[in-house]
């Protein structure tokens, strides 16, 4: 078996999450990924970002950073000073030999440094040039910077969770950035497929904003057709009581997740409140909608009467009912389902020993994934890349280093 992107060479000029995670995905799929970092600023800002959003301490042993690590597994790092003519020339020579160039740098900076698509395609007509901007390259904010938070804010995502009395809520998982990375990887592979058929490279483009809108496709697209204000979902007044989450006696939550109205009688019976089936307040879908507050409070009381494990056994007896325990992120580490499907894996890290990592999310029956390796130190592969890839002599490398073209 071989990996789908065996032999594909990617040059990455990216920071933070969207561009770098796309690089991780392409490398998981077998590509060779070389990232260009700015020597004057100590490389990617996340190398030294101890508290992201001030919350989680990302400091790891060996003066390494968890944020940087998870976004850069197994890449090679070179520090080319793109403001230096020779540094830029080294980058262009690398891109000339590459199949893919990915970047999430602001368009005006890209143009100023001459790494825009028009300049590069002359040097490499087969190049896939994949760019992620904050807001899309057109429009009044085409040149502005942004990130996961601006994507969440602009796209409506922050009003997606919580009830009407909540302020807008920031989602800590990084949906826009992670979606952006996934879409960027998707666009790269789509363009590689097109190149197999046409022989030509091309530019592909997406943005943090398009990604943030995409991951809420259900809300955004339904709203466009229905043309109504999009409601938040208040669990206290859940209009479909079988699509709501409840607190159990042991303070654990369980989510009922069925949208099939016809399940109501069997559900009510299963949770040991068969009298509700004949209760005039809850007879029809419309009745249950109308009296949702009353029904939710009855069900709250009912679920609070037993620990979650008991409810799981009870609900598990009906194979057609959808429900699930509400876990916290750290619970994933001990989740047998996650383990069995290898969504999290152990990897050997040269500095930390055995650590846990999130695996590539798609299983292929006939294609291999590349095994995860440590993120590179800053400029770790300067010498190797300059000599082996670009054919520089040791003297030339030394000259590039001393002139400041390479850091």
């Amino acid at each position, binding site marked *: 078996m071989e990996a789908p992107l065996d032999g594909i060479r990617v040059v990455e000029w990216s920071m933070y999450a969207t561009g770098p995670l796309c690089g991780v995905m392409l490398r998981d799929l077998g590509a060779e990924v070389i990232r260009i970092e700015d020597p004057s600023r100590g490389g990617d800002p996340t190398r030294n970002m101890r508290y992201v959003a001030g919350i989680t301490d990302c400091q790891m042993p060996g003066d390494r950073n968890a944020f940087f690590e998870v976004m850069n597994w197994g890449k090679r790092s070179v520090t080319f000073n793109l403001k230096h003519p020779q540094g830029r020339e080294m980058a262009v020579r690398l891109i000339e030999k590459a199949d893919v160039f990915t970047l999430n740098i602001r368009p005006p900076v890209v143009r100023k440094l001459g790494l825009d698509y028009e300049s590069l395609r002359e040097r490499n007509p087969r190049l896939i040039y994949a760019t992620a901007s904050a*807001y899309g390259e057109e429009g009044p904010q085409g040149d502005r910077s942004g990130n996961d938070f601006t994507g969440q804010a602009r796209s409506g995502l922050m009003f997606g969770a919580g009830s009407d009395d909540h302020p807008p809520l920031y989602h800590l998982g990084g949906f826009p950035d992670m*979606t952006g990375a996934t879409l960027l990887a*998707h666009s790269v592979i789509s363009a590689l497929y097109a190149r197999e058929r046409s022989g030509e490279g091309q530019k592909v483009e997406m943005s943090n904003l398009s990604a943030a809108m995409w991951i809420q*496709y259900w809300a955004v697209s339904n709203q466009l057709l*229905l043309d109504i204000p999009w409601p938040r979902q208040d669990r206290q007044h859940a209009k479909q009581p079988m699509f709501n*989450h409840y607190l159990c006696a042991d303070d654990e939550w*369980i989510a009922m997740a069925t*949208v099939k109205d016809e399940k109501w009688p069997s559900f009510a019976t299963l949770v040991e409140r068969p009298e509700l089936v004949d209760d005039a307040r809850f007879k029809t879908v419309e009745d249950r909608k109308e009296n949702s507050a009353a029904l939710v409070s009855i069900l709250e009381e009912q679920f609070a009467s037993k620990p979650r494990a008991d409810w799981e056994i009870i609900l598990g007896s009906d194979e057609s009912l959808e429900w699930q325990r509400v876990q916290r992120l750290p619970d*994933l580490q001990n989740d047998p389902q996650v383990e069995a499907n290898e969504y999290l894996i152990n990897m050997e890290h040269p500095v930390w020993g055995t650590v846990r990592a999130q695996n590539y999310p798609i299983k292929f029956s006939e294609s291999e994934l590349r095994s995860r390796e440590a993120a590179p130190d800053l400029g770790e592969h300067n010498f190797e890349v300059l000599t082996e890839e670009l054919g520089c002599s040791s003297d030339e490398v030394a000259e590039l280093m001393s002139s400041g073209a390479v850091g």
Partner: protein
Amino acid sequence: MAKPLLDGVKVVEWSIYVMGPLAGVMLRDLGADVIKIEDPSTGGETLRGLRYTNGTVDAQMPGGRNASFEISNWGKRSVGLNLKSPEGLELAMQLIEKADVFLTNFREPVVERIGLDYEAVRKRNPQIIYAGSSAFGPEGPLAGRPGNDYTGQARSGMMWGPGKDEDPPLYHTGAPCDIGGSTLLSHGITTALYARERTGKGQMIDVSNLGAGMWFQYWAVGINSLVGQSWPRMDRRKPGNALWNHYPCGDGQWLALANLLPENWPAFCRVMGLDHLMEDERFVDIDARRRNAEELVELLDAHFMTRPRADWEEILLRDPSLAFERVQRVEDLAHDEQVLANDYITEIDHPVYGKTRVQNFPMTFEKNPLAERQPAPDFGEHTFEILSEELGLSPEQISEYMGAGVAG
């Protein structure tokens, strides 16, 4: 004229609700021909008749149509085949024989019972890309169990993402696990098509709703896997970094500040007219600001309340190093000039609804146009066309099948 990227690629889709169908939409946006198999005994896919999903939004549209079905099935062709009849299954297999991709999100036990599992399908078409999707993955104690976006959000830790400590877990109405799953399916299928160009081999791919829920929190899951701490929620009254937080302005509108770097602090104080805070020892460096974030948020809350949002936007724009953004609602997007300038929302002529705004495919390709959005098919709209043109059946054979309930 350049062709769409997946021009000539044939997809047979047997899926319901969102995760499978939206993957089909993505492939069709890229140019594939997507044939959707629906069950004639139930009048087609469940979503066609699902008026209230989570009970809040009524998806009913003019002409007896359904908005949720529409957005999950743009431009596909619908063929009604009763897969429980041997003849119906055989017709499905003949379609699959001529296809590049088979896409399903039915549960494995159902797929096996019907006889459309990977082993059976690849016997008929060894080059097929078989895309399966499940709620919890093909292995483990929950394999084969039913689930959906909600179960994905619950199991993956996502519901503890937004909100503050005293809040209950919160459900996200955008359906990120389903949509994320669709996106991974489309990505995985494209990857397998590319691999097939190079190796000549078809294969099976698998994506789950749970795996997608985890993937789209990769930042959080990845870091939590390494640092091993309990994972905090982010309370806007007590953020770790007051410049990565959102504030209500004088007109009741919200503004998000999205700045991560220490050097953003003096720049922010200067444009906001808060120079005195730069000298304040409670906020002297990023660690101090982290310790005293609660006080800082109170100060900034009061400050932002003194002007409407538009004023603050103008003020913050003066320093290009600062990232900020208005906090919009989903319904604001249709009027957002940035969204419209980039064609993230476009307009189509719909035969039933007239001029209709639709959300576009989220990426653009220089050399490959996207396929034009077309309405979702009526149930069985293309049964005759597909059985005659694709499978070469005579009108008599087709009406016989229709009469026998094999096709519909």
